[in-house]
């Protein structure tokens, strides 16, 4: 089936559905979600716990397959690839930032950042790029350190560097500030925003925190697997305003459902 997901948008999702469990224990995690993210756009997906944010991100990353619908990254339908091609595609085109950093404790900062290249034995091509990244992210003096010797903020910066090292088409961030205090969270958001602007990155961030979502261009509000609202951050000057609007949407939607 040829569909709009094959257009040139960095990320295009069409009628995506995903459920877990069987029969009476079945939970609809994602329901008929469609969205498109333009090149250089920063999209935030916001929603309460259990709304399907992370599942949506996993589906976009190709970490799990949908029950229905399509995901295309860089114009390529993920469903058209077998596991090996999908893995190689992910390595090359998708950068992942996890809430719990997910650094390999036995590797140094440098090796953790280079990990996507080490996995592909493609180190030489982008080796020099690591210096720029370390410098940009303020990690130059931490190059030889191991993850357990770093603060939480530093570990997440390493995770960001790792997501960028392969020069991916899109960066997917799953609660990137979830394990950080508010000050470090804000710093990280600034950094991501700066990178996006300077390097024209396409970013999708999943969060439940309006103060993180405010850094995006557009915010999708998710509830029980459905997109219930799309907000433009241009309309909100502070995260507080965005948060209030978010709560308003959620309560309105809850009333509708009731």
């Amino acid at each position, binding site marked *: 089936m040829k569909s709009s997901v094959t257009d040139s948008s960095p990320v295009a999702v069409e009628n995506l559905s995903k459920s877990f469990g069987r029969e009476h224990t079945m939970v609809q995690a994602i329901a008929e979600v469609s969205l498109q993210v333009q090149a250089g756009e920063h999209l935030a997906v916001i929603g309460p716990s259990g709304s399907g944010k992370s599942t949506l991100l996993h589906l976009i*990353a190709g970490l799990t397959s949908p029950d229905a619908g399509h995901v295309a990254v860089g114009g390529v339908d993920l469903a058209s690839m077998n596991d090996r091609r999908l893995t190689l595609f992910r390595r090359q085109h998708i950068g992942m930032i996890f809430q719990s950093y997910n650094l390999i*404790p*036995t*590797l140094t900062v440098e090796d953790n950042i280079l990990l996507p290249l080490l*996995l592909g034995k493609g180190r030489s091509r982008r080796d020099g790029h690591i210096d720029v990244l370390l410098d940009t992210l303020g990690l130059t003096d931490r190059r030889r350190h191991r993850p357990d010797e770093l603060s939480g903020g530093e570990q997440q910066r390493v995770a960001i560097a790792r997501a960028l090292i392969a020069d991916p088409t899109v960066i997917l961030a799953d609660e990137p500030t979830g394990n950080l205090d508010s000050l470090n969270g804000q710093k990280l958001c600034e950094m991501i925003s700066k990178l996006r602007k300077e390097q024209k990155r396409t970013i999708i961030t999943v969060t439940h925190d309006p103060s993180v979502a405010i850094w995006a261009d557009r915010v999708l509000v998710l509830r029980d697997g459905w997109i219930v609202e799309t907000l433009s951050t241009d309309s909100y000057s502070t995260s507080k305003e965005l948060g209030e609007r978010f709560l308003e949407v959620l309560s309105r939607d809850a009333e509708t459902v009731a």
Partner: protein
Amino acid sequence: MSLILKLLAKQFQRRWLCTLLTVAALAAAVAMVIVVVGGHDVAFTRGNLDAEKAKQALGRFDLLVISGTDEDAQADQRRGGTSPPAPAISEEIVSRLQNDPRVREVITCCAAKVECCPSGPIFRTAMHRPGMLLSCQLAAVTAKQPPQELVAGQWVDAIPDYSVVIDKQMAFPLGDAVGSSFQLISRTGRHDVTIGGVLDSPFPIRRLQAIYVCPKTFTRLTGQPAATNRILIDLAEGVSRNEFADELAGDARRAGTPVHIESADDYIEEAKRWASFRTSHGQSGAFFPLLRNAEMNLAILAALFVIFNTFSMGVQERMRQWGVLRAVGMTRLGLLTLIAVEGFLLATLGWGIGVGAGYWLMRESLSQLASFAGYDLTIHVGLWLTLGAVTAYGAVFLASIIPAIGAVRKRPLDAMTGTARLRATKGPRWMILLGLLLVALNPLSVLSYQLPDAWADRTLPPLGILASLVGFVLLLPSIVILCERIFSHVAGAIFRLDHRLLRKQLSANLWRVVGCLSALTVGLGLFVTIQVWGRSMMVPFMVPERCPDAVVTVFPGGVPDEKLPEINRVPGVESAVPMILQHPALANLPDTVPVGGIITRDVIYIGTDAPAMIGDDKGIIACSFLRGDPAEAYRLLNEGRYCLITDSLYIRCPECFDVGKTLNLDTLDPPRRTLTYTIVGVIRMKGWHLLTMSAQMRRGLSRVGGMVLTSANTARADYPGANNKTFWLNLTPGTDAMSLEFPIVKLLDPNARLASPDSPSASRAASRPAHRPDGKPDLRTGPLAGMGRSREGRGGPPPRAAGASGPRRPGGPGRGGPPGRGRGMDLGDYSPQPPIESNVYCRVTDTAAMTRAIVRRSEGIIQALTFYPLLALGLASLAVVNTMILSVRVRNWESGVLRSLGLTRSGLLRYVLAEGMLIGLLACVASLAFGLPASWTGILGTSHSMGVSPVYVIPWATLCLGLAAAVVLCILAAVAPAIWAATRTPLKLLQEGRAAE
């Protein structure tokens, strides 16, 4: 309790493979304990049963009277070869016994020592080979009733000429059926004889083993009249054996014919001594192949490591779960109960299965051994069950105690925050220092061999090995950390992974890997040790390239001086070195010289032309001087009372046996005297031990302390009347060593002739069909008969020496065929020759054939010894599987991250396999690091005790093969966990990993 059982049921269900592995390891350990302990028990109990049987060694008779003194009887026991009948017992004594009312029955006989050609696998011990002759008594009897019950055939008075009655103990080596033939060698040559009857004999006392014939046949076979030199006496009821024996011995002494008297008590004592020797010296291995003490114990150690590794890992893995249980209200006692019940259940299961497996192994092994067949295995079942239980429950207790203490000491919150994430760790420094110290202790144990104290000899080497083992376990963390960096490159290259992904792979699970490596190293390290030690210890016993092609001994009187040159002219003989061979013993030894065990006072004394025998260029055997100058030594030897000695003596006591020192020898044979020589050189002659033993150049089968070389003239002066009996020969290419027998006999006895077709023995052989009833070729008469050997192209028909006269036997009956067997068994290089009728007997030993037999046998022993380390290695692979499973499970999260970052399924598969390979490579390093020094220590100790110069040979090809097999085993052990990980989706791995945190 129901909660505990419910938790355990879920645990076993979820971790079924780990549970299965733990049970398998437990069962294997229990089975091995049962086999080891049970095997010893069987051997020891068999000794007691043997003692019971020994009571019946003389059958219905009470006393055996043997002509000669007690010393003569003792010397005769150790003497091999053939000998004329011992002097007769006084007629007066015999007559008095026959008329003594206290005596119920008397059987008189005349015994002479003869040799027989066993053709079957009679000798299963290391040093006997096909072709060696079995020395026994040929007894002429006139009694109408046999001394024991006849189990087959007829007694000597009812069987034809050249027929014999053998006892049941002889039936196994010589033929177990009436009508089958074997060759009997006496001082009148080699004769084919037929078994006419088999006597029941309950217990194998070597000196009682006899072949019974009528006096007429005895005289024909030995050329001697049958005069009474042995008497069997059955005493009347109520007569005291001891008193009667003392009285008889006194009478015989007074009559001028001293006697030695034996009763059943002597045989009982001997049986008990043998049983004790078998168990205390680990010799039972020769009788019972499962009883390789050291190897089996180490295999048990490996199994215990596996149990420890498996169980403690399982326990530690659940630390967080227990934290949760503590947090929700489970008491410390409850937690301990949970661990104890789990251990109890697993141990019980392993014990039950292990007992069954061990019993089965024992039963199957024993059923393979005729002498153990029918042994009741249930006699000591209580002991086996108890020891198996101690192993199973003890190992589980030890394995669970440390993690259990750790678990209950933790606060609930500590346990809950315990993370499954890994980081590289290092072993504490004290471990390295202590490990190095303990490893260094092992070589010191070699010093024990220098100590005369038997206690030190028994305790220091085992302590040294134990220290070495513990030391290496302590060093293993450092070895892991050091080596994984290097091997990560190798594994990375092979599995196409970046080495940086692997370089901390093992140290991240340091203690788990150390546990696994310990189990592997026990087996693999022992494999390395045995291979290096075994191959190295073979070297001093291997005959060198330059050595005589054959050794010939001529009976009874050797070769007179005037005929010596003619030996050189025998067709096929290139050169011959005659020897005057004697068997004195070291005399006047200082107390500091250790004597006993395998170090004996007996020496081989050779009077010969030393340069012709061992000279640099023209010597018939390769030899080097360890001490002294060859030219000077040869010059002094010709001047008189000087000698050369082998290095075996020098190694024993350099202070006593060195150049310039005096060597005292006791002649042993009457008239006894002490010979004194000055040592002019110490020589190193490879392979002399086995060469002299194979050629039966020793007094008997027992070991000798060394070899002493003097000039022929000196030997003649010291042993007046001694002739050149033994020759070392080099043969012309293409000559079959065995073909020299008849020409040499003919040289000394012009009347000698090969048994003619119409002679009794030959006609019997000729009448046999070329094929046995079962269709297999009869080696005695068929196309394979007469299969001889030549210097080149062995296996072809033997070329007859030009000078060999005598008729060829039609169809070749008996020509070279092994007598009386026809079982199609492996005869190795041995093929007996046709009977020769002569009063001269010439024994020919084919050195090359013997060397091949020695090599085959030695390699067989090494292979047998290697079996148990490999068994231990196989067991240890359970630890690898377990380690890999847990390693993969613990790293679910990490694997999920790697997969989500772009590691393919095959990449993850290779990643896990590479870890297995790394473990294997580290095990190889640890095993080499342990095995090479340990084998060196062993070589030093064994060489010293055996009186040979230590040689260190590393059989790299075999080692590489074994080590490669271990690596492959480790990789194979990682396959299942690797597939398990690779087939999971990245998200599943992440979720499982997160759940485990």
